[in-house]
């Protein structure tokens, strides 16, 4: 127990929580924007995988991490649009289309990796680049907070910034409002002249774009290579984080942080004598528990509200 506390109350642990939260947070925000438009996007896993590879390849070819990131973002947006095309134009069930996309991404990235790097497992033969880490002046001098908050990858800060950008976008801009309107009541939105399919298409493209930052972070920040199936379910965890966060940007951020905490914990606990498999299970179990607690609470709240309305409607005696 003492060892356990020693692990948690260190600045390295705080640093690593933010480090592992980053990809989940991007994916959770990506899940949010499509979910708010009424489309569940379970292709995040595949999109992150594709963009992680794209980032590695183009950063190698262009000798620039930033161009690698740019290409990854373009690729992610295109993939989101592809999903939108299949779902909205060809009327494929969006879950099945996403399953197809995930399978395609898992095998397709290995296929491409082998073609280019000559290896089916890892891209270490390519001289890919990573995005820079940023030391924040002044902040890094502060004890405790400095080592936790400073010196992260540039995308980690962008992820944190994205929470507020997303909050602003979804609640304050016309497009955000259209997305929410379409998600809450497509018929009503349609009746006031909002193009439902067009809005959902834009939301899916945005979802792909945001997820691609998470993918690029995986291979150009979290580690400096691409390896097969490296996203390891983060795209799925993000769906749970978004649901648990009540489909709000701030809520999704807090839920992502919670999963990041458990993910970091599982990395650290491997140092102790806890069976590794057991520890690796923690984030997923925590996700299920969190999801159930959240939905159960929401359902209770809803029922209490119904009872309250019922009482108010009762005639006075």
């Amino acid at each position, binding site marked *: 127990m003492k060892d356990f506390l020693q692990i948690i109350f260190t600045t390295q642990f705080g640093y690593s929580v933010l480090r592992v939260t980053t990809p989940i947070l991007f994916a959770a925000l990506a899940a949010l924007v499509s979910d708010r438009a009424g489309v569940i996007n379970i292709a995040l896993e595949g999109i992150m995988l594709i963009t992680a590879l794209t980032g590695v390849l183009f950063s190698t070819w262009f000798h620039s991490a930033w161009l690698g990131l740019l290409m990854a973002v373009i690729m992610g947006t295109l993939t989101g649009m592809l999903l939108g095309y*299949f779902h909205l134009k*060809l009327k*494929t069930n969006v879950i*099945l*289309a996403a399953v197809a996309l995930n399978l395609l991404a898992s*095998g397709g990235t290995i296929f491409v990796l082998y073609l280019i790097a000559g290896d089916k497992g890892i891209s270490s033969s390519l001289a890919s680049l990573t995005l820079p880490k940023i030391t924040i002046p002044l902040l890094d001098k502060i004890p405790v907070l400095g080592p936790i908050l400073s010196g992260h990858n540039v995308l980690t800060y962008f992820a944190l910034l994205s929470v507020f950008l997303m909050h602003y976008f979804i609640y304050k801009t016309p497009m955000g409002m259209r997305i929410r309107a379409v998600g809450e009541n497509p018929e009503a939105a349609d009746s006031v002249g909002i193009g439902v399919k067009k809005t959902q298409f834009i939301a899916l493209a945005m979802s792909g774009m945001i997820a691609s930052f998470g993918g690029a972070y995986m291979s150009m920040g979290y580690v400096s290579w691409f390896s097969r199936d490296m996203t390891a379910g983060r795209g799925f965890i993000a769906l749970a984080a978004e649901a648990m966060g009540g489909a709000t940007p701030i809520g999704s951020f807090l839920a992502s942080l919670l999963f990041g905490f458990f993910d970091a914990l599982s990395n650290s606990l491997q140092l102790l004598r806890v069976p590794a498999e*057991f520890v690796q299970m923690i984030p*997923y179990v925590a996700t299920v528990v969190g999801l159930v607690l959240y*939905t159960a609470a929401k*359902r209770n709240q809803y029922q209490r509200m119904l009872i309250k309305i019922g009482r108010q409607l009762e005639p006075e005696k």
Partner: protein
Amino acid sequence: MKNRKLAFESLRSVLAIAISLAIALVTILLVSDMPGTALKAFLFGPLDSMRHFGNVLEMMIPLIFTGLAVSIMFSAAQFNLGAEGAFFMGAVVSSFVAVQWTLPVVIHPIVSILIGGLTGAVFCGIPALLKVKWGASELVSSLMFNYIAFFFGLYLINYFLRDPNAGAMVSFKLLASAKLPYIIPKTRVHFGIIIAALTIVVMYFFVYRTRWGYKTLLTGLNSQFAKYAGIKTAVVVISAQVIGGFIAGAGGSIELLGLYRRFSWQQLPGYGWSGVIVAILARRNPAYVPLAAFFLAYLRIGADLMSRQSDVQNEIVAIIQGVMIVLIAAAGFLEKAQYRMVFRDATRDLTNVGNTAREVGG
């Protein structure tokens, strides 16, 4: 009319398959230095020897089980993607029975498979229960349960069943009494294929010939309507997923007892996801599951042979699968042609009716 609709659906499936194969062939031509060899191995490799064709049949077996499992869950409109974890856990738990229990020859595999199936039922049943009881999305929680099953299963094997004398992380040897026998000489096609055939018949009968199966289909089509019709949809929905989990778990167990000497999986085998492909190809109808499973197994064995004999990697199958699924599941694919067909039929019918009326009247 119904026949024409079926014919049209089949035509669409065939076209989807043709398009995805064409994309794969073009890809092979583009990336390979020896496209001739590659194509030959890919398309005809599985037919060139009894052993290779046997490989196709043996790969069909797990695909049939997970295909049936996903079909029944999707029939109830439950997007439970937990067949992957159920398959894995079924194999894990049944390896305990196969290693540690001493039972007579025929009884041993039966007990082992049943217990594997029950484990699978639990793993697909929990997300179902969480959905019905608390409203937690079965899609998300079943995805999480796949990972839980994976790590928990590895934990069980590595801490309780690991053979310290074997070099790798594998279990003790499965007892001979628990193994399923090979039934076709010169191949590794095992008794599991007969169990698979029986399961197909049972599931077809269950879905299309029993009240419970009908309730499941109705709930899947329109759960509100089913509820008003007096069907206990919660029970139906849970039972579909428990049955699906059972089949997937039993499938994992059968795969293990048929083909392996020890439990040796270090990754999720992916058959649960393949089950989704099979279920979509078969349009959730158990009768078409063996066809779909055969097709997918043929593709994969062909691709394996191609990657061994040429410079094209077997992951090309991923491309075919992806394109195939989206096109087959796409209601809008060839929609215009379908409308035209319906329109033509309707006009013809009306003209006929008009002509008859005129003849009768005149």
